[in-house]
């Protein structure tokens, strides 16, 4: 087993993919605690679909995908945040419309550009072969930014996630924190899409937070546990994928599902 893992790490592209995977999962888990508790889970999902559309248009027009899709997804993130804050517009319905429209426009762009040699499957479900050095540098940057932000703003994030009105009423600018979370989520989604794919990236955001809330009931414990669970699941997913020749993105999601079920049962037993 040890030999097997050592051998797995000897491939440069796998090493790179695992590193990006761990960093993306860690930042996704931290941002996910905020998003899930604010009931913004669907924002991650909406963003990944917009990311797909942007990526497809970039390929069709021969732009560098990352440089084109990151700004587009950031704009989409602010827009989705605005929709979700304003309850007079039905936020969930708006996100569904944006998601499917983005996919549709992306597919049409690919089809119009005619015979691009990209595999749609890779974009939908992820591929570790898509991970580039640029992805690696961006994901290192994003995860460092997310972790530093989380430590420095931890108390503000907790207070504002629990009761936004109270924090606003006592004179703290909550909008700026919401924007920061949306910005980092957008970049994280674009980078993470390479490995996890459009359809699976939101699980990295949602699963760890939900999983740790099955067992833990203090904010600090939920955050720490979500971080640990996310990294564990990425590593376990990669090893299992390599061992049984499975698609890594899907294997990581299934690892998350398995841990979620274990935590759910544990949570029940602890309560009983």
């Amino acid at each position, binding site marked *: 087993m040890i030999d097997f893992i050592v051998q797995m790490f000897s491939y440069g592209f796998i090493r790179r993919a695992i590193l990006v995977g761990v960093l993306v999962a860690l930042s996704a888990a931290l941002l996910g605690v905020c998003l899930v508790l604010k009931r913004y889970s669907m924002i991650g999902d909406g963003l990944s679909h917009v990311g797909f559309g942007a990526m497809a248009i970039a390929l069709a027009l021969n732009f560098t995908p990352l440089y084109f899709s990151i700004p587009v997804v950031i704009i989409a993130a602010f827009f989705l945040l605005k929709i979700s804050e304003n309850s007079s517009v039905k936020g969930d319905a708006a996100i569904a419309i944006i998601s499917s429209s983005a996919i549709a426009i992306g597919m049409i762009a690919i089809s119009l550009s005619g015979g691009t040699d990209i595999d749609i499957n890779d974009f939908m479900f992820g591929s570790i072969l898509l991970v580039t050095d640029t992805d690696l540098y961006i994901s290192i940057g994003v995860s460092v930014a997310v972790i530093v932000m989380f430590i420095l703003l931890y108390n*503000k994030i907790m207070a504002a996630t629990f*009761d936004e009105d109270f924090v606003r*009423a*006592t004179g703290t600018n909550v909008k700026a924190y919401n924007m920061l979370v949306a910005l980092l989520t957008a970049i994280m989604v674009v980078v993470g899409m390479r490995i996890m794919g459009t359809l699976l990236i939101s699980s990295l955001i949602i699963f760890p937070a939900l999983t740790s809330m099955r067992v833990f*009931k203090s904010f600090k414990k939920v955050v720490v546990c979500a971080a640990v669970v996310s990294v564990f699941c990425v590593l376990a997913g990669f090893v299992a994928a390599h061992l049984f020749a499975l698609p890594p993105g899907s294997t990581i999601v299934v690892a998350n599902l398995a841990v979620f079920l274990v935590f759910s049962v544990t949570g029940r037993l602890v309560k009983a």
Partner: protein
Amino acid sequence: MPLVAFENVSISYDGVYAVHDVNFTVEAGDYLCIVGENGAGKSTVIKGLLSLVPLKSGKIHLIPPMTRRDIGYLPQYKNVRNDFPASVYEVVLSGRLSKRGIFPFYRKKDKQAALESMRQLNILDLKDKPYCDLSGGQQQRTLLARAICSAGKLLVLDEPVAGLDPKVTQEMYDIVKRLNQQQGVAIVMVSHDIHAAVLYANKILHMDQTVQFFGSRDDYVNSAPGRAFLKG
């Protein structure tokens, strides 16, 4: 000593006035109840005071040395998440956030203030309990402890007893009265319960989009809107 003054304040939602041309002042040590029918703009007055909604016209003056950071706030119980993973201590301590400004961590002083307000409300033994596992009354005490440790001068309460059972309701009223009388905290409370309002408050603001009555409790009981509302 005046703390807050509303001057011709109007607030509208989607072009319709929720409150119109409101004038009143809150003095140090006041216990002001805002009463009125459903939809009369009671909560809107409070949201204006807390800068949660923009003013259409008029001005709300916080009279120095009073600042926004001296206001503690207890939101409507049903508006606060009760499935949130946080310990009682984490929730109460979050009341000290505005005292920290841009400094990222709570200091010893903040932790002491949080513990002190938990002691006052008799929830010190619940310190490490998950907030979501508490009873409604305990949750409301936790939120009140958060409000108290965030500010000492003015406490704004939006229907603090809505959804609580009669025994817990009485407890809440007693706690608020004690804070007002013993600690000199000024209270602004939106209340559905007109009888409790005239029992505890020293001033009444009766709203129906516009101010129907503002003045002392004793005058209110004998005024036309007061007599009509108390009867109904």
